[in-house]
């Protein structure tokens, strides 16, 4: 392991170190084709149907933040992993690891919020588990959710379907969730103006697949590692390059200001209610129109395209028409000193 012989926080950051950990320790141990595809959810053939199956653990700090809480996040996050895989979510599990001493009121509020999020999407939480650990062996509350769904018949998604000329759409402003969490954590003053985008993207995903079928080549929700990580995953798996245009990327000005203040690249910052969609050029406008007609997609925009490239590279054309590379983030973003 590159960074020493111990696990660092950066190994969980969704960047290069996470990737290395998965490839060097986890995949070799469990080796099978389904897992090794590293898709947002695993696809399992069951008779004529494809079942999609996914799981995710939530360890957000603070538990409550502007725009959501760990309960809503745990439900929406897993729904989103199913949705971007082209699946119609059927049911979720929800498991709790609770630190001794957590106030019952806090737990009630979070469970209520998870229930409300599931109800909004009309997806039942059908099983779960509860464990309590000694004080100081966990940070208040961790949640794991798993989900199953049925693959939509019209969904034909995959890295291998991405081709030069395809367009890249992002379904709204970037960095909102990550900067909201970070501003809470760092005790920054403008936190009230920042709001997490924590939401289900099931509506957008279902509608674009329903309307455009195999013209939708690939979808992924750019969570940890932000847009930069998702676009790098795409180029690494599809043997193409991607070019994006800074002036087209929707960003909330307060989010941008907060990121600048802490020295972060907004492209590296997490989202929790957005989708990156790779769509064929002839259906791009239609796809954009559908996104913009959805609850969470009003600010959707075409931000770039897949280009010919002899190496997997994401390039950004900046506002002043300069060019630079967008790399896979390292893992743990640290605020700068001054």
């Amino acid at each position, binding site marked *: 392991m*590159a960074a020493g012989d111990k696990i660092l926080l950066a190994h969980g950051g969704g960047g290069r*170190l996470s990737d290395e950990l998965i490839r060097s320790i986890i995949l070799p141990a469990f080796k099978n084709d389904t897992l090794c595809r590293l898709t947002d959810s695993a696809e399992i053939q069951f008779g004529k149907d494809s079942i999609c199956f996914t799981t995710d653990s939530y360890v957000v700090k603070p538990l409550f933040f502007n725009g959501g809480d760990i309960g809503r996040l745990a439900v929406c996050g897993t729904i989103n992993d199913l949705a971007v895989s082209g699946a119609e979510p059927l049911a979720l599990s929800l498991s709790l690891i609770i630190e001794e001493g957590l106030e019952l009121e806090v737990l009630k509020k979070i469970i209520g919020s998870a229930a409300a999020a599931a109800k909004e999407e009309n997806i039942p939480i059908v099983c779960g588990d509860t464990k309590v650990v000694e004080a100081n062996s966990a940070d208040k509350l961790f949640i794991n959710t798993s989900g199953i769904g049925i693959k939509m018949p019209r969904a034909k998604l995959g890295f291998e379907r991405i081709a030069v000329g395809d367009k890249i759409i992002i379904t709204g402003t970037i960095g909102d969730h990550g900067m909201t969490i970070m501003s809470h954590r760092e005790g920054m003053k403008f936190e009230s103006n920042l709001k997490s985008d924590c939401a289900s993207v099931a509506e957008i995903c279902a509608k674009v697949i329903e309307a455009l079928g195999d013209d939708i080549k690939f979808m992924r929700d750019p969570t940890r590692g932000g847009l930069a990580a998702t676009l790098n995953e795409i180029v690494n798996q599809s043997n193409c390059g991607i070019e994006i245009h800074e002036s087209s990327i929707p960003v909330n000005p307060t989010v941008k200001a907060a990121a600048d203040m802490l020295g972060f690249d907004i492209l590296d910052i997490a989202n929790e209610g957005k989708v990156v969609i790779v769509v064929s050029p002839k259906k791009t406008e239609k796809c954009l129109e559908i996104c913009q007609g959805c609850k969470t997609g009003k600010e959707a925009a075409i931000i770039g395209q897949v280009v010919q490239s002899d190496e997997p590279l994401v390039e950004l054309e*900046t506002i*002043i028409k300069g060019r630079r*590379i967008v790399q896979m983030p390292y893992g743990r973003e*640290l*605020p*700068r*000193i*001054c």
Partner: protein
Amino acid sequence: MLERINRAYTQIARAQKVLGRTVNIMEVCGTHTVSIFRAGLRTTFPEGLKLLSGPGCPVCITDQGYIDAVLSLADRDDCLIATYGDMIRVPGRKGSLEQKTNKGNIKIILSAEDVLKLAKQNPAKKILFVAVGFETTAPATAVLANEAFRQGVKNLFIFSNHKLVVPAMEALLSEKNHRIDAFLCPGHVSVIIGSDAYKPVVERFEKPCVVAGFEPMQIIDAISEICRQLADRKPEVASLYRAAVTAAGNKTAQKIINETFDVSNGWWRGLGKIKKSTLKLKKKFSHLDAEKQLGIEFIPEEDLTGCCCGEVLCGLMDPPDCGLFATNCTPETPVGPCMVSSEGACAAWFKYTLKKGKVDGGRR
């Protein structure tokens, strides 16, 4: 926008003609370095303009010996180390703070204020504050020292290694083989010290000093202004960051710095010992002084073998010319500090220009 870019082009061409060679401008601020790369500015400028990334990132200029001294305390069970985030990844001889976080005694803080809270929450621990940074973070450390003094806090210790920007600029220009024609002066630091602080540099060395904020267009304007001065052979101090920087600077901040610290000689990575460049706590604060109270010793270290951070910081070398760049030294496995800090020159070259193991787009 286009008009301002064109104006910069004209001035760059004029300066180049007058100098009869490439114009070399050094930025002395890590945030400028990152803004320049992030906006792809280097790819928009003509040949004949070279931007050098100087000693403007607090992590990068911190001497190895200081890091080792902090690391020596990280293993002690009675200590809590409070540090700005950037510092935790810098490798010392025995690993980095990031690799020692498993003991739970490394706390990342965003402001010096948090250190006082830590001290109160952990009365049984000795809190060591890794006090680094330029004139930007020094006032906060000063406030912390004064508050701790006033409240009689007994378990807080400050390991001051705050640096002053102007002495470093003068040291660079005093080197025989430097290639600096002008300075793009830091934004945040200038808010504190004021743009007049650069007057001695202009008077003694006849080099333009222009302060700018961090918007790419303002940086372009500053480069334009620098080149105009070079072409007219009239070096002076100018500030384009008028929204935040005054000629005299922030008097309150300067006052508390002066009341809390003595200016002493200090070690800079790559630049060696620079006279009157480092802030150390005054005698009055001896009981808060980590060097005096915790028995730590700050022994300046030789630079790491093969690492060219020193040459990079002095503007004598671009990161890709270092033998370790992108081979042995990457953001995951940094050898030198310029690859560690997000604002370090090497990290910026790596992150924003590296293609197929070679740099591109950052005009050399």
